[in-house]
Structure formats: structure tokens, C-alpha cells
């Protein structure tokens, strides 16, 4: 997995037209909000032709990211976009938040696998296992941007 953290004014990956986009997520979403997000996202990406295994991974990663943001990110607004695989461009999950900057890159780099003595901490491991690259930075408008490629 490739991991990159860029601190300021980043705009490396040009966005493509999304097959799923939501910009009105305000944590905490709660059980129903998170379930609704997972269901809507899965339905959209499957309808767009994403193969089901990729769709499952995408939704699982988004779920873990939102759960982590709720717990550690201190954000009150989240945005999520899914861009389809096109030519050489991979399937891409793009996430934004206005929190204090939860460093998922570092978290994923040090994430450990299943441990029979530990109840938490598998989320970043799951993200690491499910994606082939993770990039994170801050946009010029001050949002944190996380881009995951599958």
C-alpha cells in the first residue's frame, strides 16, 4: 500500500465525475444514519456497475472512516465521493472533513492485524487491507482530504 501525507494546499488528483456523492453528513450520524449511508452507497455503486466485491470493500472502508471521524476527527461536516475506475484511473474514494486532522495515513501505517487481546483498532487495518493507496492532505479551503484507491 502506498501512503502519502501532504500538509498544505494539495490538489494532486483531479476529480472525476462521481458515481456517488454526499455532502451533508453531520456527525454523529448514529446507527440509523450510518446504516443508511452504507445502504445508499452500496446501491449507487452497484447500479453504476462496480463489481460487488469492490463495492463491499468501498462501503466497508467508508464505514470505518466515518466511524473513526466520529470518534477521533472532531468534524461537524463530512463529504464523500466515489469516482469510477476509468482507463488507467482506479476506483477512488474521496473523503473530506472539517475536523482537526485525523492522520489516517499514520494510523494505517502502524495498524496491526487481528489481536485476540484487543477489542478496537481494526478499522485502520481494514482500510489498509482493502485499499492499494491512501493519500491525505489539506485543501486550500482548509478541509482535510483523504483519497483512497482500490
Amino acid at each position, binding site marked *: 500500500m502506498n501512503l502519502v501525507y501532504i500538509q498544505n494546499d494539495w490538489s494532486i488528483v483531479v476529480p472525476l465525475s462521481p458515481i456517488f456523492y454526499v455532502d451533508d453528513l453531520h456527525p454523529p450520524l448514529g446507527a440509523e444514519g450510518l446504516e443508511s449511508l452504507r445502504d445508499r452507497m452500496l446501491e449507487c455503486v452497484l447500479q453504476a456497475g462496480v463489481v460487488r466485491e469492490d463495492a463491499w470493500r468501498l462501503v466497508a472502508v467508508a464505514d470505518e472512516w466515518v466511524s473513526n471521524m466520529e470518534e477521533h476527527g472532531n468534524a461537524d461536516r463530512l463529504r464523500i465521493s466515489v469516482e469510477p475506475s476509468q482507463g488507467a484511473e482506479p476506483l477512488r474514494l474521496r473523503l473530506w472533513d472539517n475536523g482537526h486532522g485525523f492522520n489516517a495515513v499514520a494510523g494505517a501505517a502502524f495498524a496491526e492485524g487481528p489481536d*485476540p*487481546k484487543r477489542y478496537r483498532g481494526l478499522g485502520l487495518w*481494514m482500510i489498509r487491507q482493502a485499499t492499494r493507496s491512501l493519500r491525505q492532505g489539506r485543501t486550500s479551503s482548509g478541509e482535510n482530504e483523504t483519497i483512497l484507491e482500490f
Partner: protein
Amino acid sequence: MEKLQHRLEVLGQGVHALRLSGLVDVFSYVAVKQLIDAYAREHTPPRLYVDMAEVQYVGSSGWSVFFVQASALEKAGGALCLGAMTDRVQHALNMLAPRKGLLLTAPSEAEALPLLLQPPQAVSEP
């Protein structure tokens, strides 16, 4: 909304089935932990088949509970086996733990029973 529901049944030979339905995610993993804790306190050795056929989704917190509880039941001389997972749930487990043997699994209840009745050493990974 698919809330987590559960039912405990006797399968015989000291084995029980915990039949779950719904979601095992960040909002319900504590309930699953408590269910398995309670079962283990009341049954010795604890031999538990967790029927996952009606579980639509398991998040990382849910998987953590299964990993930790499987180890705890094994230490208590029993075992925990997840069975009848949907393709989506099985895919998540494969992604999370590609190394076989971290968690005892079976395609069905019938195939889980002999695994649960074996001594723990025989079913755990060396």
C-alpha cells in the same frame, strides 16, 4: 432498520447456537460481546456456534469482538465457530484476516459441530 437480534438455542452435546440477525457494527458490537460473555459464564466448557446467516454486515469493531471472544472461549476449554456467513461477510473476514485459522469458521451448522467438539488444540492454528 435492521437492529441486531439474537436467539440462543441448544444444539446438543454441550454445544449451543447463538443466532444473530442484523448488523454487528460500531453500534452493536458491545451487545454481541455481552451476549458471548454471558454465555461463557453459564456454560462450561463454552462451545458456541454463531449463526451468521442473517447478519448483513460486520464492521471492524464486530470482528474484534469475534477474535477476542474466540480466544477467550478457547482458553476456557471451549471454542467459538462462526457459520453460514453471507458472501459479503465472508469477504470482509477474508480481507481482514487472510491468514486462515485465526477464527474458526464453517459453511454450516452441521460442519461446525465436529469442529466445536474437538479439543481446542485441534482447531486452533499452531
